[in-house]
C-alpha cells in the first residue's frame, strides 16, 4: 500500500538515531465539570490522561480508537488549539507549552491541521481562495496579489483548477473541500500536518483519493503526518506507526505492520477483530466487547479496559472458561453500578406466564435462572467452587441484599486488572502495550491466539 517513502518508515522506534520532530510527554487534558455561580469544580472529564508518543521527521503516525476516547482532544491540545492541562510537547526540541502568544503564532506556520468536517471547516462567507489565503494573511502576507499567486499554485497542486479560487464552499463537493483543506494547511509550508479524521465524512471511493493525495504531498514536501482516525483501514493504508487509544490513554504503540499482525493489547485485538472481511465464510474471531463504554469523567480503576476486556485476568483460585469469566464480571460490574433490578427480572418472568400470577409468585430458583440468562452465564459454572460462590451471591441478590452479593463477588472474584494500573511496556522490539498480562508474563488466552493466527 501507499506508505510514505521516508527512510525510517519500517524502522523500529528504539533503533532511531535522529531526534523526533514532535515529542509528547504526559499530555493531559481534563475538562472541569463546574456548578453554581462560583463555578465550583465537582468533577473532571479526563478526555486525555497522560499520553506519550513521538513523531519523527517524514513519518506518518496514526492515533486510532473509538469515538470519545480522546484522540481528537489529544490532537487539538497538543498544538494548543485547546490549552493542555498538563504535560510537555516538544516540537523540534522546543517546549511549545511554554510559548507566549507571539511564539505560538510563529509556531502555527510549522504545524497545520486538517479538520474532520469539510462542511463546517470553511466559512460559507469566504471564497475558496480567501480561505486558502487566510493563514497567509493572518501571518502577515499583506500583498493580495502575492497571496493570489500562491493560492492558484496550491489549488493546482491539490488537483483543483485555478478558477475554483472564486467559488464558494457550498459549490464544492466534500472531497473537493477536503482538497482545499489540504491546500490551506500546505499554504504555511508546514513541517507537520495533523489530520483529524480527514476522510471520515467522505464517500469510500473519495477517501482513498484524499489519502493518496496526502501521501503524495508528504513525499514531495517531506511532511510528518499525525492522523487521527477511528477507521483502521485508513490507518493501515498510510501509517508507519500506530498508537491505539482507549479512554484517554495510549494502550498500544508500535509500527503499523506489527500492531496489525501481532497486536499485544486485548483492546487492539478486539478492534482488529471488528474489521469486516470480504470473505463470506469468515465469521470473525468472535471477539465482542461487552459492557458499556465507561464515562471519562469517572474512569474505571486499575486498567481502564478491565470493564470490557475479553481477556481479563482470572483469580488464581478458580478456573473459568474465559468467556464465562467475562460474563460473571459483567454481572459484578452491573451490581457495583446498582443497575441490577431483581423486581424487573421477576416481572419479566411473569409476563410469560398465566395472567393471574404476580411477581411475588416467582420462585427464587426461577429468578436466579433468569438472572443467569440475562448475563449469558451458563446455569452451572465448570468450577464447582466458583459455582458455589456465584450461587451464594445470587441468593443474596434475590433475597434483597445486593450489598452482600456485591461484597461476596468482590472478595472472591477479584482480578488484578481492577486494582493495578498497567504501564506501557516493551512487548516486542519497537512495540509497547499496557496490559497486566504482558507485565506479569501470563500465557496468551485462546482469543489472543485466534487473532494472531489470522
Amino acid at each position, binding site marked *: 500500500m501507499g506508505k510514505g517513502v521516508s527512510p525510517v518508515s519500517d524502522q523500529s522506534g528504539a533503533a532511531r538515531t535522529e531526534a523526533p520532530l514532535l515529542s509528547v510527554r504526559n499530555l493531559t487534558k481534563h475538562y472541569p465539570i463546574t456548578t453554581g455561580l462560583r463555578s465550583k469544580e465537582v468533577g473532571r472529564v479526563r478526555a486525555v490522561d497522560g499520553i506519550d508518543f513521538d513523531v519523527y521527521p517524514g513519518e506518518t503516525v496514526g492515533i486510532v480508537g473509538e469515538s470519545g476516547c480522546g484522540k481528537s482532544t489529544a490532537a*487539538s491540545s497538543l*498544538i494548543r*488549539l485547546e490549552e493542555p492541562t498538563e504535560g510537555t510537547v516538544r516540537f523540534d526540541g522546543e517546549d511549545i507549552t511554554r510559548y507566549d502568544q507571539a511564539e*505560538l*503564532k*510563529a509556531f*502555527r*506556520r510549522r504545524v*497545520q*491541521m486538517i*479538520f*474532520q*468536517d469539510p462542511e*463546517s*471547516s*470553511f*466559512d*460559507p*462567507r*469566504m471564497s475558496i481562495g480567501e*480561505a486558502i489565503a*487566510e*493563514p*497567509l494573511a*493572518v*501571518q*502577515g*502576507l*499583506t500583498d*493580495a496579489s*502575492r497571496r493570489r*499567486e*500562491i493560492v*492558484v*499554485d*496550491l489549488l*493546482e*497542486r491539490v488537483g483543483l483548477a485555478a478558477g475554483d479560487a*472564486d467559488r*464558494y464552499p*457550498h*459549490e464544492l463537493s466534500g472531497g473537493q473541500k477536503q482538497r482545499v483543506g489540504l491546500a*490551506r494547511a*500546505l*499554504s*504555511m*509550508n508546514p513541517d507537520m500536518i495533523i489530520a483529524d479524521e480527514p476522510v471520515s465524512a467522505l464517500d469510500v471511493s473519495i477517501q482513498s483519493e484524499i489519502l493518496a493525495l496526502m501521501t503524495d504531498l508528504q513525499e*514531495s*514536501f517531506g511532511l510528518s503526518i499525525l492522523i487521527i482516525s477511528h477507521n483502521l483501514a485508513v490507518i493501515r493504508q498510510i501509517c508507519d506507526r500506530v498508537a491505539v487509544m482507549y479512554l484517554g490513554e495510549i494502550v498500544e504503540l508500535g509500527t503499523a505492520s506489527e500492531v496489525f499482525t501481532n497486536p499485544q493489547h486485548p483492546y487492539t485485538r478486539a478492534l482488529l477483530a471488528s474489521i469486516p472481511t470480504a470473505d463470506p465464510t469468515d465469521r470473525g474471531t468472535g471477539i465482542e466487547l461487552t459492557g458499556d463504554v465507561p464515562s471519562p469523567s469517572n474512569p474505571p480503576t486499575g486498567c481502564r479496559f478491565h470493564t470490557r476486556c475479553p481477556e481479563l485476568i482470572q483469580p488464581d483460585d478458580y478456573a473459568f472458561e474465559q468467556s464465562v469469566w467475562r460474563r460473571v464480571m459483567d454481572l459484578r460490574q452491573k451490581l457495583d453500578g446498582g443497575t441490577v433490578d431483581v423486581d424487573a427480572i421477576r416481572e419479566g418472568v411473569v409476563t410469560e406466564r398465566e395472567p393471574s400470577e404476580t411477581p411475588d409468585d416467582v420462585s427464587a430458583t426461577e429468578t436466579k435462572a433468569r438472572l443467569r440468562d440475562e448475563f449469558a452465564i451458563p446455569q452451572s459454572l465448570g468450577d464447582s467452587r466458583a459455582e458455589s460462590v456465584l450461587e451464594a451471591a445470587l441468593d443474596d441478590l434475590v433475597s434483597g441484599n445486593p450489598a452482600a452479593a456485591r461484597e461476596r463477588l468482590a472478595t472472591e472474584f477479584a482480578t488484578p486488572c481492577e486494582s493495578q494500573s498497567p504501564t506501557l511496556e516493551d512487548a516486542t522490539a519497537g512495540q509497547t502495550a499496557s496490559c497486566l498480562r504482558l507485565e506479569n508474563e501470563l500465557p496468551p488466552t485462546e482469543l489472543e491466539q485466534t487473532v494472531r493466527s489470522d
Partner: protein
Amino acid sequence: MAVDNEPRETFEDVDWDDIDETTRSFSRKTIVTIGVYVLFAVGLLYDYVLKPSRADTIEPLGISLQALDWLYILTLLTILVGVVVPLYENGRMTRYYWQQFRKNRAAVASLLYLGVIFLIGSIGPRFLEQPTVDSSNAYQPPVFTSAPNWLPVECAGEVAGGSCHGTWAHPFGTTHEGKDILVSVIYGMEVSMQVGLIAALITITIAAIVGVSAAYFGGWIDAALMRYVDIQITFPTFFLYLMIVYLYGGSLFSMIVIFGLLGWGGIARIVRSEALQRREEEYVLAAKNAGASGYWTMRRHLLPNVSNSVITAVTLLIPGLILFEASLAFLGLGDPTVPSWGEVIASGRNDLPNAWWVSTIPGIFLFFTILAFNFVGDALRDALDPRAEGGDQ
C-alpha cells in the same frame, strides 16, 4: 507537481522571516477608509474647537452643520464603507442576493420608493427654505382639488362656482398656518431618514460588538454584558426621553441618541445566540490554527456570518423608529424646530372635516415608508436565508 512555464510564487518561496521584519503595510482600501474617517474627524474638530462658535461651518456658502448633521454624515459614510463597498467588491455574491431579492416585486418597488424618498429628502432641504407661517396663505387646497371658497383666507388659485381650486404654487396645499405641505413633507423625509438610519446604525454597531464579544469570550464577559442587556431592556426609554423634553426641550438629536443608545438590547441577544452557534464551527478553529487573533476571528468570521439576522432585524427596526418619532412629534414631544411628518399630521387634526389634505398627505408618505421598509425587510430575509443557498446558477 504542477508543470509551469512562467515562474510563479509558491508557498515554498515565502520568506517568513522577511515578512516578520517588514512592518505591517496596509492595503489601499484600508488607507482610503481611514483617510475618510480622519477627514471627518478633522471637520468635526474644526467645527467645534477651531472656528468661532457662532460662525457658520462653511462661511462662504452659508452652510451651518449641527450635531445631528455631523451624525448623519458619519452614518452615511459608514453605510458607504460598510455596505456599499463590500457589496461592490463581492460582485458575485451581490448578484446572487439581488437575484433572490428581485423575486419579490413589491420589495423592488419599495426599494425604489425608499431610494427616491432618500434622494429627495437629502437634496430638497439644501435648496428649499423651511416652510414659514403665512396666515394669508392658509388652507390652500392641493392641485387638482378644490375647497369651499370660505376656507382659504385668500385663494391662490382660480375661484369657480364658490370653490377655491388648488394651484401648482402649493401642489400639496397648505396648513392652517399657511405652511406649504410639500416643503414640510420633503423636510419630513430627511427627518425620517435621519431617525431611521442614524438610530439603526448606532443600534446595530453596539448590538454587533456586544453580541459577538459576549459569544466569543464567554464566561464572565458574556454574563456581565447579557445581564446589563437584561437591565437595559427593562429600562423605560420613553420616560427618559420625556424627562429630557421636560428639562431641555424636545430635540431630534437627543431623541435619536437616546433610542440608539438604549434600544440595542434585543438585537444584541439575537447576535449573541447566532454567534454562539458559529463559534463552534470548525472554521473558527481553523482560523485559530492559522494563528488568528480573537479580533480577526470576530471580524472576519463571526460578524459576516451573523450579518443575515442583523440585517433582517434592522430593516424591521427602522420602520419602528420612524413610526415612534412620528408618534412623539404627533404628541408634540418632537423637535419644534424641524417639520416632521408626525408634526404636520398633528397640525391638521382639527381641520380634518374641511381641510383633509393637511393630515392625509404626510400620513400617506408615513404609511408607504413604513410599508416599504417592511417589504424590503421581508425580501432581504428571504434572500439572505442560508437555507436557500446552493441554488444559484
